[in-house]
């Protein structure tokens, strides 16, 4: 899936090789992505302090108004300040995907390493399970589960985490298989280093970059999925400032105050694009480094 951006960044790199620009750490586009993520982190950490208004304060008299000096992005139907809700909404947009990405990173790496290193029946069982899970439309599974068991943000996060593990598993297994025939693994085996030590202390450091690159992609994917669930009213608790929910609530205001639903939409697109680009770029860095080795 990353091939597309690969060649894009390749052109950047070809340019970077000219002597004058050789020391450039990353292309400008990637720097912008990191900058945007930094802003997101600031909004998560200091959201309530940055917001000019209380995101929950209602004002029936000032409802459905367009942007003004007082309310930069106008107000929603209940008169709540859209800009303040947008800033506070970063918290629920980031927290769930972060938990999912880290959980999938840990579980997927352990399973992928085991599958690739041990091989045999264990590998077969893990990979059939991966095939099954990858074929499942995760959003639908969560909707059905929410319908039967009663939903909730953290249940959606847990389910999405379980459904994201196979993606990490697959990537890590492939990376492990690539390391297996290298001399250092052979040497460690010949010296009688315990298997677990070889897997986690010898092989893993060599594939860690791949693992982290993939984590960015998982993060972006779950950010999109969770915002969709919130849009359908099955994610974040009703009333909490959340980007997906803001889109659904303010859709009826498209005539009166279109920014109220467009701004959170753009926020979702920017956050997902930034993480996707960083993930793709990291993958590209790894593969080009591998090629010159």
């Amino acid at each position, binding site marked *: *899936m990353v091939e597309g951006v690969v060649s894009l960044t390749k052109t950047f790199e070809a340019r970077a090789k000219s002597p004058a620009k050789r020391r450039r750490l990353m292309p400008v586009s990637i720097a912008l992505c990191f900058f945007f993520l930094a802003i997101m982190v600031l909004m998560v950490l200091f959201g309530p302090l940055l917001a000019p208004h209380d995101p929950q304060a209602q004002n029936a008299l000032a409802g459905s108004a367009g942007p003004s000096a007082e309310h930069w992005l106008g107000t929603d139907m209940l008169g709540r300040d859209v800009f303040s809700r947008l800033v506070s909404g970063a918290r629920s947009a980031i927290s769930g995907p972060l938990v999912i990405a880290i959980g999938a990173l840990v579980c997927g790496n352990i399973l992928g390493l085991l599958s690739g290193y041990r091989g045999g029946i264990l590998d077969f069982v893990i990979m059939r399970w991966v095939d099954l899970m990858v074929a499942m439309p995760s959003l639908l599974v969560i909707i*059905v589960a929410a*319908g039967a*068991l009663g939903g909730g943000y953290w249940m959606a996060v847990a389910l999405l985490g379980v459904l994201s593990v196979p993606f990490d598993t697959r990537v890590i297994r492939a990376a492990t298989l690539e390391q297996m025939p290298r001399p250092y693994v052979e040497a460690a085996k010949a010296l009688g280093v315990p298997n677990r030590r070889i897997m986690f202390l010898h092989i893993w450091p060599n594939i860690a970059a791949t693992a982290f690159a993939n984590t960015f992609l998982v993060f972006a994917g779950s950010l999109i999925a969770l915002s969709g669930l919130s849009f359908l009213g*099955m994610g974040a608790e009703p009333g909490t400032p959340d980007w997906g929910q803001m889109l659904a609530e303010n859709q009826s205001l*498209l005539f009166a105050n279109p920014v109220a639903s467009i701004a959170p939409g753009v926020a979702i*697109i920017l956050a997902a694009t930034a993480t*996707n680009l960083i993930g793709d770029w990291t993958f590209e860095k790894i593969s080009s480094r591998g090629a010159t080795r």
Partner: protein
Amino acid sequence: MSLKATLLFIVRRLAAMAVLMVVLSFAVFSLVYLAPGDAVDALLGGKSSTPELVASLKEEYHLNEPFFTQYWIWARDALHFDFGASTQTTLPVTDEIGARFGSSVFLGVYAYVLTLLFGVVPGVIAALRRRRAVDRGLVAGAVVTLSTPPFVLGILLLYLFAVVVPVFPAAGKGEGFLDQLWHLTLPAVALALTISAFLLRHTRASMIGVLDQDYVAFARARGLASRRIMLRYLLRNALIPVVTVSGVLLTYFVTGAVLVESTFSLGGLGELLVQSAESGDLPMIQGLTLIIAVIIISANLLADLAYMAIDPRIRFERRS
């Protein structure tokens, strides 16, 4: 691969499909028991319970029978497209699904055609103009569309083409073919764009792979017409992986349709699923889940068969 081997492959796949459906149907059936409270609470769906109603429900759903007998009766009915009655509308689930099936299929087919158009054509162009401005622009655009959830795109399109320039309707599914086409254009575009970005990257990568092949250079050297090289040498080989991903794409379509139908209030199957999940309408959830699963599984089988049909290397693989 001989005809016999092909048939064997199909039979094996069908058997795997049957096993998968049994496992899945068991999971779907168990939803009634996994739901909070007991099965009667789940099937009441929030209605106040009277002893008579409870007794009639127990009779209707054979709740006094052992668990596996219940499953057997339920699965037998499901095979005959009888999933019981919705707890919300008390109408048969099959009727409710049947009434909405048409518009969802229309949306799906429409979006599929658009996806091929938006995905394959720019993908081929990007590959032919590799590393030029056009390529870089298309690839960057694909990343942005890939990061755009269908409902966000839906709302942006609604704003642009139903509010700013009101050329398309903001909601509803329309009557008759042309009216439906008009009503479903924005939803289909919203659904297709995200998925076509995925297809674009796939087509581009595959096309670049084929462009680097010696046989293409040789065909050029022989002085074959560029149109012939394009159609017979490049596209024919480059589009094989595109067929293989179509099974995966369908999963995206189903997921995306749920979001898009809710955005545009189309009253299709996806919206029905969301509504029944919100109201805890278990018979409806069960029926919809099984039908969606059958669609996804059979589409994957079809994609595999198409792959075999167009790629001789797969067919003859075992002979060597």
